């Protein structure tokens, strides 16, 4: 049982490139934390610093409250899972799991007991005497994991372990890893560029951008309450619709948001949720609406023209044009498109008969609307 703490952890290369300017992050005992971000965001660099593969140039790395900055990978007692999937065909499952313990001259009885324990955890007890050729694909995968587990590591580190698998196997293995991690309760840091993988696997997800932590929270919180435009757009598929709008005063405590030629009124709880917008009255902001907040259920509505319809079975993705410029998070901040129109996506009931070219009135669930500052990209919420 272990904890991992990154205190102002830094990585600067000799050429002056600052991959990680200073990261603070804590992974609790038994927690499954996923580091996610686009290519080049520094997530693998962070994992490699934790593994002892990259030298730390500043800050501290603590495992169980002990600073391990100067320790090599072996001394840190961590397991890089899925380094190799190779199973040895002439060796039994038990031998495949145990053989590396021979290098550490572990006592035979101890090896036997440890293998039995791991086999039970991995539901491999019944096949311990079999050869890999007699196992199913899933069983083989578990034997490979058993080799990492049998060492009793303090931490599991996984760097894009599913990236080599095809889509179907990736989904299946994703579930296997999650289940196993929960059963074992080993503190785990998992790196991926795939936000779906992050959201489905992690107890908490840390979103990185250019080596800076943008937000670390549960998947639900990240999705429902992104702290900035980058997280709002990075998390979720389809990506959050974000367009430029302007804030105005409504009747009484109401607020209004203009999107192109259309006006949305925020009343009651919706206005209260976005109370911070009162500081923006008369100014432009970025309005974020997820695809499922558009459609069948809401208090406001917008008119759009349908460009494309995608039937996914469980939902209908309708791509529409709206007369407001798109806004997106970029490396240097926020970018507003110079095109006066943009495309938004609505997720509708699959039985909806909508077709390309239709004019559509989409309702907007204002309780699920997001607002962001156009300069900083920070979320605007309750003030």
């Amino acid at each position, binding site marked *: 049982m272990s904890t991992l703490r990154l205190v102002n952890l830094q990585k600067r290369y000799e050429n002056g490139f600052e991959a990680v300017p200073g990261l603070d992050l804590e992974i609790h005992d038994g927690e499954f934390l996923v580091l996610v971000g686009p290519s080049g965001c520094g997530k693998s660099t962070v994992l490699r610093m934790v593994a002892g593969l990259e030298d730390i140039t500043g800050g501290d790395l603590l495992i169980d409250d002990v600073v391990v900055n100067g320790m090599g990978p072996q001394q840190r007692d961590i397991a*890089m899972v899925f380094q190799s999937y190779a199973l040895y065909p002439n060796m039994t499952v038990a031998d*495949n799991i145990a*053989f590396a313990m021979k290098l550490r001259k572990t006592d035979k009885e101890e090896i036997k007991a440890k293998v039995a324990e791991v086999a039970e955890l991995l539901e491999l007890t019944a096949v311990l005497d079999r050869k890999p050729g007699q196992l199913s694909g899933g069983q083989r995968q578990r034997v490979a994991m058993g080799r990492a587990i049998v060492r009793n590591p303090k931490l599991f580190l996984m760097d894009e372990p599913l990236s080599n698998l095809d889509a179907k196997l990736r989904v299946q293995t994703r579930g296997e890893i999650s289940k196993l991690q929960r059963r074992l309760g080993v503190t785990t840091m998992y790196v991926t560029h795939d936000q779906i993988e992050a959201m489905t696997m992690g107890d908490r997800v840390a979103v990185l951008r250019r080596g800076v932590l943008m937000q670390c929270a549960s998947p639900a919180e990240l999705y429902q309450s992104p702290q900035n435009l980058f997280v709002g757009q990075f998390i979720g598929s389809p990506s959050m619709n974000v367009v430029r709008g302007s804030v105005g005063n409504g009747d009484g405590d109401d607020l209004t948001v203009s999107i192109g030629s259309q006006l949305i009124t925020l009343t009651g709880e919706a206005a209260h949720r976005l109370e911070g917008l009162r500081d923006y009255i008369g100014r432009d902001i970025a309005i974020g609406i997820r695809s499922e907040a558009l459609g069948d259920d809401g208090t406001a509505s917008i008119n759009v023209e349908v460009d494309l319809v995608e039937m996914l079975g469980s939902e209908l993705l309708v791509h529409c044009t709206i007369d407001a410029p798109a806004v997106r998070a970029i490396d240097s901040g926020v970018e507003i498109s110079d095109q006066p129109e943009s495309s938004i996506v609505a997720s509708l009931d699959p039985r909806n008969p909508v077709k390309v070219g239709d004019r559509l009135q989409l309702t907007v669930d204002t309780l699920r609307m997001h607002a962001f500052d156009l300069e900083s990209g920070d979320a605007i919420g309750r003030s």
Partner: protein
Amino acid sequence: MRLQLVKAAEHGAVVNWPFDQPLAEWSIEGMQKVAGLHRHVVRMVEVGQTSYVVKELPDPLAEREWRLLRELAEAGLPTAEVVGVVTGRQDEADGLLITRHLDFSLPYRTLLAGRGLRIPYLGERLLDALAGLLVRVHLAGFYWGDCSLSNTLFRRDAGALSAYIIDVETGERHEQLSSGQRQLDLQIATENVLGGLLDLQMGGLLSEGIDPVETALAIEQSYERLWLELTGIDEFNADETFRVDQRLRRLHDLGFDAAELELVTTLDSSRLRLVPRVVEHGFHAQKLRTLTGLEAGENQARRLLNDISRYKAVVEKRSGCKVIESVAATRWLEERFERALAGIPAELASKLEPAELYHQVLEHRWFLSERAGGDVGIDETVASYVADVLTNAPGEQMVTPDEP
């Protein structure tokens, strides 16, 4: 579909392969399965005198391995010769990486089962070759990530072995490796070698006298020793500059040469600090190539260079005058090397590389001379070697491992 091919004129036949079909379903002439431990479908295809290895793996991995193998080759590291890569196949099928099979290479399963011509101290030779390879890839800033017996091929090298990296799926190229990366790579190599050896042992395929645990553990020591010798800093008094020459000799003995050395005086100028900056492998092979044009492994080259020196001494003694090295080498090539190989029937000569054959003839001569109590001539040696050794030895130009 996109096929990228190097030396297209040489590998033109590749273009006609059925890239629209899954590799497992190919049925073209010269096709063979490749036994051993593979994560992907792997096949061998023989076209005339050339054999190709084809591996099916996802596009990004195929592209990456293609790039890494080329980078390794450009860095002068011993690796599989990359021929082509196929990506963007129809129905989102995985890509294909095509490499040329390394002629005269021996898979570890064949080698460790003790088949073919005997190699003395096989376990030690194997670990020395693997540790040497790992040191060389690390010096070039390359993290392997899965150094194992099955990801390596071995070639005979005058009683020793030289190792070639053939699978770099998990590799990464860096400007320089951190000590943590080297440590982890070494740890992975040690565990993988133990796994490979134990697997052979449990399958009854490991020749006697090789202890899997001791052999695997010895890789770490062998690696650390070599790494220290190649990169360690020497410090000595300012009037002991002969130590530079000593260090160079030690590097040469290990088959390396220092292309760049750095000598720094200490603050009080009383001592010098020597740091080898650019260390390259192949000192003897390069020298042999310059003198004779022959291609050989590092140990084979060392052996042949010694024979050239001996030959030069004999000629000088006989003629009573000095002979320059390049002249001696040219005469040696004609009178010794080519003469010995000419005595071997063509159908047997293709069993081993020329340099290895010559080394074996020299070994055989030593054996015959010792038994006879005096020097045995080269022609007599060759005749005996052919009759007693080579005729019964398996050909090694193209060896594929047996099923596990």
